[in-house]
């Protein structure tokens, strides 16, 4: 069979894959993008970031309407039509995916629908609907992503046990929903289902939800979820699950205590695993770590010099924007630029209510690693903007190097924190000091002021808080 020749083949069309394909095409390369799904966009667009945020927006609407009675606005209990809601979500995804398809076309990036399999270090076999195709490439970029992990003990083959993928389809609103895993996926989807009317129990094996975030930032999220959810149980393990009629029987262990409970549905959100199976990696020199993620160097290069890997499949934090950054690095390395994933900070956002976002060094990390830092905090109870919409359950925090006064980390919890963290990323990447942030005028009344006021509070003169602190060190 005659092989199709290309300079670069990109395997996967998620936020890593299409970013790589487009950037390579913009740099004049001949690119083929292989995707097994009909709709481009990967997990992010189809089963992750975008649909979950659409539902979270709907959830917020419900919650805000409910809470508006204190403002003298009374709504009747909402009627929720799941079919319409799903169609609305789908319309968003179609629009976005259509956009990607259009952008691919305009760049002459050939999209091949089918499953890719490496025959050797320079050949990809693609199983398309119209039969096998062979693609001969100079360079390949693997961007096949990850999928929700489901431990075999929970895999009952019962649709009532869901991963995030099924949960985002919202087939029904279960009366009692158990969320296994208090990470960001469990907390976000728990929020959606709670707003729609489910009674939620979250169980987390560790001693806190949202492990990785500073405890003081996670606290407002846990507090609000505590009201919205029936219960959050930490240090709790799910031992067993079994089908019990139209319900799922769950055996739990809280320390020495054993419990047996019934739920209408269960969401398993205990982590994600790379999609490395059946890629033919064994026919190449691509290496994997013990968890199955593809090993790459700082240039995103795998053990096979012509093959690169980016995004979730390459491990690290499993976030779309990390994949997109790695896409740029891989393409730049392929096109001969000096580029490397070094000293790059990746922000994290949890879209719970309130939102939780951070970037750079966290306070816990600083403590754990013994980095000498000073921490400045600004409570949103002092923000007029936060008060104006009744959400003072927020905090802005700066992690600062006391010597250079450079900002090393930013953490924000509160409504819209995800939209605010970008300024923190820029500040850290630019090597800004707390003074730089304090001296930059922020518009009033906005939540962005909490950043400049937080920086001012580091020097002891924030307008809207009062703290006896150190004298100004500015020369």
């Amino acid at each position, binding site marked *: 069979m005659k092989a199709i020749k290309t300079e670069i083949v990109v395997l996967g069309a998620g936020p890593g894959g299409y970013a790589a394909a487009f950037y390579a095409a913009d740099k004049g390369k001949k690119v083929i993008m292989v995707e097994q799904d009909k709709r481009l966009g990967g997990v992010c667009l189809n089963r992750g970031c975008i649909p979950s945020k659409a539902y979270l927006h709907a959830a917020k609407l419900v919650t805000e309407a409910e809470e508006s009675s204190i403002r003298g606005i009374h709504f009747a209990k909402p009627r929720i039509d799941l079919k319409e809601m799903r169609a609305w979500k789908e319309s968003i995804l179609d629009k976005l995916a259509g956009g990607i398809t259009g952008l691919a076309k305009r760049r002459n990036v050939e999209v091949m629908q089918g499953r890719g399999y490496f025959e050797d270090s320079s050949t990809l076999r693609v199983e398309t609907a119209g039969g096998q195709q062979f693609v001969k490439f100079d360079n390949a970029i693997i961007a096949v992503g990850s999928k929700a992990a489901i431990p075999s003990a929970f895999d009952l083959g019962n649709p009532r046990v869901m991963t995030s993928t099924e949960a985002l389809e919202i087939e029904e609103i279960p009366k009692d929903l158990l969320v296994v895993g208090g990470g960001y996926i469990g907390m976000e989807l728990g929020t959606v289902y709670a707003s729609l009317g489910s009674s939620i129990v979250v169980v987390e094996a560790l001693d806190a939800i949202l492990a990785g975030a500073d405890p003081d930032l996670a606290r407002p999220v846990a507090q609000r979820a505590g009201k919205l959810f029936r219960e959050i149980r930490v240090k709790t393990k799910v031992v067993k699950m079994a089908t019990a009629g139209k319900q799922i029987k769950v055996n739990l262990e809280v320390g020495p205590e054993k419990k047996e409970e019934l739920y209408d549905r269960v969401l398993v959100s205990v982590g994600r695993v790379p999609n490395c199976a059946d890629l033919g990696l064994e026919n190449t020199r691509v290496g994997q770590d013990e968890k199955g993620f593809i090993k790459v160097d700082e240039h995103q290069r795998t053990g096979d010099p012509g093959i690169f890997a980016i995004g979730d499949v390459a491990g690290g934090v499993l976030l779309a924007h990390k994949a997109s950054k790695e896409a740029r690095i891989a393409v730049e390395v392929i096109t001969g630029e000096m580029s490397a994933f070094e000293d790059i*900070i990746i922000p994290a956002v949890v879209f719970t209510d309130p939102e939780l976002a951070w970037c750079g060094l966290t306070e816990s990390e600083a403590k754990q690693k013994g*980095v000498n830092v000073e921490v400045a905090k600004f409570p949103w109870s002092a923000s007029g903007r936060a008060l104006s919409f009744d959400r003072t359950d927020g905090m802005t925090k700066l992690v600062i190097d006391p010597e250079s006064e450079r900002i090393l980390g930013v953490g924000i919890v509160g409504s819209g924190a995800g939209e605010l963290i970008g300024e923190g990323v820029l500040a850290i990447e630019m090597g800004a000091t707390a003074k730089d942030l304090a001296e930059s005028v922020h518009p009033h009344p906005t939540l962005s002021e909490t950043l400049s006021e937080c920086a001012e509070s580091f020097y002891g003169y924030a307008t809207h808080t009062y703290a006896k602190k150190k004298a100004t060190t500015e020369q």
Partner: protein
Amino acid sequence: MDVRLPRLGEGADSGVIATVFVKEGDQIQKDQPVLEIESEKAVATIPAPAGGRVAKVLVKEGDEIRVGALILVLSENGAGVAAAVAAPAAAAPPPARAIDASVGDDAREEPVIDVPAPPRALPASARVAAGPSGFPIVHPAGAPPPASPSLRKIARELGIDLYRVAGSERGGRIVMSDLRAYVQKIQRSALEPRSTTGSPAPAAVLQVPKPVPASIDFSQWGPVTKQKISTLRRSISRKMVESWTTVPHITQFDEVDVTELLVLRKTYAPKYEAKKAHLTLTSFAIHAVVAALRKHPSFNASIDEAAGEIIFKDYFNIGIAVDTEQGLIVPVLRKADTKSVFQLSVELNEIAEKTRARKISLEEMQGGTFTISNQGGIGSGHFTPIVNTPEVAILGMGRSVLKPVVREGKVVQRTMMPLVLSYDHRVNDGANAARFVVDLVKEFENIKEADVKI
């Protein structure tokens, strides 16, 4: 208390940890070795600055760390582990990518092996290569140098280590004008003749990363084994290329009659052994070389082309090529002109042992004026050694053999030792070298019992 990596010596501001001798919970004494660090040419042992209990070890073998990096936390004797756990020792900043709560965070911490680096990118290790004193590291380890992403990209493309670029903005932030000034400083310092007191030319900074030839897959012709190039091997390689490419080498061959010397040696060796000294031909050679160097100062010299000067040295520090398991190391035997053959033998033994144990410090390898490489023990004949720059000559010794030679018209048996001298033709001409070798042979043959007596 915090234990940080002390200064390693002139021009060495970082190294790779070869061995960590202590573990958490150990009770240690002041000056007890805590780790061995491999820098440029030596493995230096880092002693504990105080006694106490090791509360925390922040480094592991293979870590590349800088001077000032935290290596250990010691708690007072008897006291708990209350001591502050301070900054991470590894030069790498905490990876920002480890902040997410999702799975697989540690996947990336695995060092990636066997991946050929792209030829154009400046290797991360280039950043920590020891630099000359004119270009010190000015930003602390632990966080990347404060500069914007665009500026960091330009620096990467230029191969400039931003840790060495002082920033003029608040918090030491580096801006374009700082980088520009730094590049100009490099060029100036490369073009200007060196002042006598100034720092040596920033060779390490100026070195443009050479294109590395593409990797060849040798396994296609048969099984192969791969070994990481050690810091020492890299250093030898760099040094030899530098010498081979800058020094016009000439090698002079000769032989010296060591029959009498060997008689002397046989007589005195037991006496030397009793005092823990080995009387070897190298001890004699140092003695003879110093005498020859006194008569020929141009072989105890260095060349400074930038300044247009030849520098003659009034001191005689003799480098001794030592064959270690890891490779060639050249410690320096200082003030050889003030020492007797016995003293030389004692010191020779000491530094050779210290070198083989890789305990020699960087200082002890600097300041040589002439080098001797004795391959006699291995059984070599004549060979052409490479000048150990910035010195201008090196003496090679081969294995002594019994030979028929003509003495006063008769063929007699004498023990002859091959002698070779490689020298820098920029400083000395062939006639000079011939005179030096003739005199050196004479000095060898003139060694008297009085010189050897203890």
